[in-house]
């Protein structure tokens, strides 16, 4: 109980919110690097996955890339990225992009391929071109699965960004790493709690976005989603 009080006091102390290693700045750092990495990963993964799905090519790679990626520890990806570049932002962004791409590629492909062949044929029969088919039929039907991939990737990115403190980037992991080093349990706990909340907010927020972007009749999709969808992975 005393510990909880101490943590509450920590959050109440304005000094802990200000400055370079203050909570405010760390949250901004954490969110910035996550957003940049996710955006870059989307630029790579969405066209690739959707394009391959539309053409029905590259399935073996697209479906398995997320599963194979799972075997590579995020921690290792981050440290290897650090070795290949300099300390700070670059390795963090590189590692986060590398982790975010696979689940999105997999889900884009799966989402496109789960579109009913009859529906596709009907669209063709109505005289739709490939581009029209993609934009008006396949994409709207694939969107829930695609968004699930984006959400999976985003949560993973926010989670892994915690480890970025180890390669000198900063972010909320800073409080955990510094706290562990100095044996300051209160600081460790405060940092961890903030990261946990951030990850949960990302998950719930993007879940709502996914729902909003899903066509009404598709909203009652059975848990756990489309077969072959990338399973989220904790980081």
């Amino acid at each position: 109980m005393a510990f909880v009080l101490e943590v509450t006091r920590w959050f109440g102390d304005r000094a802990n919110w200000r400055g370079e290693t203050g909570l405010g700045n760390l949250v901004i750092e954490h969110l910035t690097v996550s957003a940049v990495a996710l955006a870059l990963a989307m630029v790579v993964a969405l066209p690739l996955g959707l394009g391959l799905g539309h053409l029905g090519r590259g399935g073996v790679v697209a479906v398995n890339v997320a599963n194979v990626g799972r075997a590579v520890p995020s921690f290792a990806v981050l440290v290897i990225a650090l070795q290949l570049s300099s300390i700070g932002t670059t390795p963090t962004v590189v590692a986060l992009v590398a982790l975010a791409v696979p689940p999105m590629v997999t889900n884009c492909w799966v989402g496109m391929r789960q579109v009913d062949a009859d529906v596709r044929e009907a669209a063709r029969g109505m005289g739709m071109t490939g581009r029209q088919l993609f934009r008006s039929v396949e994409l709207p039907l694939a969107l829930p699965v695609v968004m699930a991939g984006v959400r999976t990737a985003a949560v993973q990115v926010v989670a892994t960004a915690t480890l970025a403190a180890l390669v000198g980037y900063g972010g909320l992991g800073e409080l955990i790493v510094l706290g562990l080093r100095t044996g300051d349990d209160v600081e460790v706990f405060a940092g961890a709690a903030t990261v946990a909340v951030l990850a949960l907010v990302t998950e719930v927020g993007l879940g709502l976005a996914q729902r909003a972007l899903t066509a009404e009749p598709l909203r009652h999709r059975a848990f756990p989603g489309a077969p072959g969808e990338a399973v989220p992975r904790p980081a």
Partner: protein
Amino acid sequence: MSGHGALIGELARQHVELTALAVALGLVISLPLAVAVHRLRPLTSPVLAATGTLYTIPSLALFALLVPWTGLSRTTALIGLTSYTLLILVRNTLAGLDGVPAEVRDAATGMGYGRLRRLLAVELPLAVPVIMAGVRIATVTTIGLVTVAALIGHGGLGQLILDGLNRDFRTPLVVGSALSVAMAAIADVALLGLQRRLTPWAGGE
């Protein structure tokens, strides 16, 4: 050189041990939980929400949240690792039980099987392929996550990655990462083999 070999062996053993314990504990918790949810449908949402929440919390944060209570101990690592297996194991067990055809269930009842016997002798065995698919995902994921536990001193091969990071020295980093990936691949294949032996009728996946 032999000193390095011994160290790597010891860390690999620690890695396997933590993973096996976490997945085993995860099964011990998840199986009854999934069976309960299977029986009492209203429990589905709360159970999946709770395990999903645990799953979403970043591992470093979860370990850190436990430190004030269980310290920099193996228990801390184990609680964290186990909690990440729950969502997948519960979800897959539930999907496996749901996948048992109604007529099979009826046939068992017709043959005079009670609820418990039907569960143990018919439903769970038929659910094994889906459960094992979950065990494979949970195992591969856990092997990756163990490396993060290096930060609380119980990271198996992750200890080598951390060492490589701290000393800015590539060799341990590469060795730790490569062995961890190899271990995940081997575990995945081994579990697939085990599944095939357990369920010869299911033909693999």
